[in-house]
């Protein structure tokens, strides 16, 4: 008689998973045990510090500074309207089903979570902006609803985004000397608002500039080619912080302005950020241009399209589509790099932390609160950058880049 054999080792379920992924061999087991112990210890100390040791009062008390710095409190409805507008448009975009809207959807969903959380916190704790975040969340929902119910709105999106830039500028900067749309000096701008303004302006304006530079670099005309190549390589050769510094010193000199203050620090750093970003954008676009097969150009010329038509209608759309992930990556990089405007004395999100760290109440805490502040900054920056990169990765999978 054949003896009954033992059942085979399970290949599914948590135990099998642990055996495969944690205890694959002797070395693996040792690594798991030692590493696990270290990890638990590190997590435990971090969490103990975060929940019992750290002093978060100063961060909590200064959230307005972090958000908008010295933007007048009674005019806070203006940035809120702007954010609501952006969420509304994002919502419309997220309703789409094309793959381009995937990235929008990824970003939109998480921004909605954030807005929802802030709405709840706001309702409970922040009387001055009690309904601001609620309005933002509702605007997002309205956008999503509108985009789903009336899909034809989505075709208007490019125009809507264009218009929103103008509206956002009017809202932030103001129009009149008096009244509800009173002008707000850029010296009062700051915090996360400034970080967003700088990175959005940097990426949006550098986009067409970068395309021009990339086309110039691939041009057959030697003078233009040399000039574009020189610009790109020189700008990329030195770090952004030096360009910011140089812009803050030299822009008034270059323009021959007698009064250096007639051009604001914000405008100077925008020039630096945009030109710097344009040089990197040019290299990204060039990569895309090189990826377009020659046959496409030849076919277009054979169809009788002119040089401009070939570039605008055939080459660029394909080239840009290929480099969307790279451009998102650059946007993330720029978003992080705007923290360098501390060098020209702008109080962006990063630099506000320095202001808060030097407040008398912060100095009373033994050892200061810079550790808490840097952790807080890191988490906020991380949230936005990570959402963007996760969305871009999704898009990459969708496009099939990297899978062969």
């Amino acid at each position, binding site marked *: 008689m054949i003896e009954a054999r033992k059942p085979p080792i399970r290949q599914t379920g948590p135990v099998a998973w642990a055996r495969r992924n944690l205890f694959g061999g002797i070395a693996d087991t040792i690594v798991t045990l030692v590493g696990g112990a270290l990890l638990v210890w590190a997590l435990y100390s971090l969490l103990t510090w975060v929940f019992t040791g750290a002093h978060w009062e100063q961060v909590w008390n200064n959230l307005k500074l972090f958000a908008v710095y010295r933007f007048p409190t009674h005019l806070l409805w203006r940035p809120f309207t702007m954010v609501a507008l952006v969420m509304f448009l994002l919502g419309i975009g997220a309703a789409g089903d094309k793959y381009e809207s995937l990235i929008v959807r990824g970003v939109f969903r998480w921004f909605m979570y954030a807005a929802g959380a802030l709405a709840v916190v706001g309702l409970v704790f922040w009387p001055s902006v009690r309904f601001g975040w609620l309005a933002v969340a509702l605007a997002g929902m309205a956008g999503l609803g509108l985009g789903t119910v009336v899909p034809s709105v989505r075709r208007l999106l490019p125009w809507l985004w264009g218009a929103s830039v103008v509206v956002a500028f009017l809202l932030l900067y103001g129009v009149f000397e008096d009244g509800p749309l009173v002008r707000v000096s850029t010296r009062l701008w700051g915090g996360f608002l400034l970080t967003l303004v700088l990175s959005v302006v940097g990426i949006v304006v550098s986009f067409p500039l970068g395309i021009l530079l990339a086309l110039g670099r691939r041009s057959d005309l030697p003078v233009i080619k040399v000039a574009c190549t020189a610009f790109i390589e020189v700008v990329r*050769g030195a770090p952004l912080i*030096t360009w910011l510094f140089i812009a803050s010193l030299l822009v008034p000199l270059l323009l021959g302005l007698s009064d250096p203050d007639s051009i604001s620090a914000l405008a100077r750093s925008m020039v630096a950020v945009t030109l710097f970003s344009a040089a990197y954008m040019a290299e990204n676009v060039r990569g895309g241009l090189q990826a377009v097969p020659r046959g496409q150009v030849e076919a277009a010329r054979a169809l009788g399209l002119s040089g401009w038509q070939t570039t605008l209608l055939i080459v660029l759309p394909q080239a840009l589509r290929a480099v969307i992930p790279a451009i998102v990556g650059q946007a993330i990089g720029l978003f992080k790099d705007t923290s360098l405007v501390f060098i020209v004395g702008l109080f962006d999100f990063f630099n506000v*932390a320095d202001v808060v760290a030097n407040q008398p109440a912060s100095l009373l805490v033994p050892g200061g609160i*810079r550790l808490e502040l840097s*952790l807080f900054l890191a988490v906020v920056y991380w949230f936005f950058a990570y959402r963007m*990169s996760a969305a871009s990765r999704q898009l990459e999978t969708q496009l099939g880049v990297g899978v062969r």
Partner: protein
Amino acid sequence: MSAETIQRTALGSQQRIPFYRNVRTIGVLAQVVFAVVLVAAAYVVYHNVTTALRSANLPSDFGFLDQRAGIPLAETPIRYTGENSYGRAFLIGVLNTLKVALVGVAFATVLGVVIGVMRLSRNFLMRGFATVYVETLRNTPLAVQIIFWYTAFLTPLPPRILNAVRLPGGALFSNQGVALPWPYPSYHFGAWVPYLVAAVAIGAAVWWLRRRQLRLADRPGNAFGPGLLAALVVAVAGYLLVGKGSLPSGAATAFRETSGVVTVFRDLNGDGVKQFLEPFIPFAAVTARVAEGGLEVQTQNLVESRRYVYGRFYFPPFQESEFEEVEVTFADPEAAAESDLAIHFFQFPSRGVVYRDRDGDGAWDQGEELDPDAPSPRGFSAAVRLSFTGFERTLVANRNGEARIPRFATTFAASESRGANVSPAQLFAPPAAAGGGEDEEEPLQAEFTIQTSRPLVWSKPTIPISNYDGGVRLSTNYLALLIALVVYTASFIAEIVRAGLLAVPNGQREAAKALGLSDSQAFRFVIFPQAMRVILPPLISQFLNLTKNSSLAPLAAYSELFAISIIIANQTGATVPVTLMIIAAYLTISLLFALVLNIVNARMALVER
């Protein structure tokens, strides 16, 4: 098609295209217009800048580079004093950039490869850790990370300088940074130089011969190893042969007891005093002996690791073996006995706490250092005195021929003259200078013997007063910047390494297995070399990024190229020349990296055939 049409077409082709529709003419014209606009713009800019500079009376040429800088710099890889020029200060900036960039590149590569390989590990924990590492660090600004590390060092999470940790090998670690033992060329180094030259020559010869031999035999092999080995053998043999030389003629020491500094110099006129023109001897080893003396400090209440610590006293870190006899007592024993105070040592004789033994168990318990009668909780205030006989310590002078011993005193002023509240700045002031009876003062009996040494002298760091002396010091600023750059860049390198490893087709792995290679052999000989081809180009551009990112040094108060340039621009007002120098420096670095990248790419392409 009618004959007429054909004729017209033929005619048309013979006609010349009008020049304004000729592509080539348009191209040339466009370029001319572009060039003219560019030149005009450049002229306007030039005109504006020169006018503005002239009207503001700011320098517009590089003449300021020879002027005295007077910038105090903490970290100087080459000799620098406030008397040196702006040019030299800028050079120090460049060297400091290279110092952080090269070391950073090396560590970032190692860490990046480790994390990248971990991301592909079978082990879930390692994989998860690496993923979290990459996703967290890549997506937070480097500026925030620099601030984090800098704060983590300065918030006394690691110990203060008074409480420095002695690591194995003689390294010291505190919130002032790390001090490592370091070899320096002594006065005897010159004798070794011929051997070093010979070592390089012989090494190169062996390398060349071996390579030729391998090429003739048409065998693969490594010619670099034998060459390096030959060079090393010659160099080491030379080092041993040279041995210890005699001291330079007239080598002498001068001691300033107020600062505890001993200067090693060549006493040309034999008067035993350091004259202005008498040269000092850098990196000389000196044995200091103090027959008898002491130190006195006041207890302190401090914040350490964000906690208040009370009633602590700190002497500069001594080892018991440095003394013949040493004793730590209260400066005023009667007063201490009256209030039942006692001393508990954390490390004899340097660190301890003053307490009152309230529970009578004869040992210090947490809380007993607090004075219950004080209005707000604080430790007992008492002066503590260290007295010794026979102190001996071997020091190595720095590049200015100076070494330090603690500022010992022979006699002590009456303890009443020292107030209960001693500021930290006064803490290590020589007690004799702190006031009190002048008649009791007598000079400290310190003897210094200069040691003969081999071509290299091993300098170990000490803490004579309240900062490091000797060895090589990596400041907190440097370490914070370095760690931030390494940890940040490693997250990018890890992704590059992962992509490179994934780019190797799976068939290669299987083929290696089929040939009977072990896992590690397959990795070392099959997978990694092929992955390197994908990894290297983006890796080198990450190296360049790290170098450029070192310009965030002002956040950690580290003086590299950019930080020093800002100071120079602010002091001289020479903004335009300084900006040109910054751009030129970074472009040179970028070009060097581009050159390396091109060479690597060319070699890779050759290997591929």
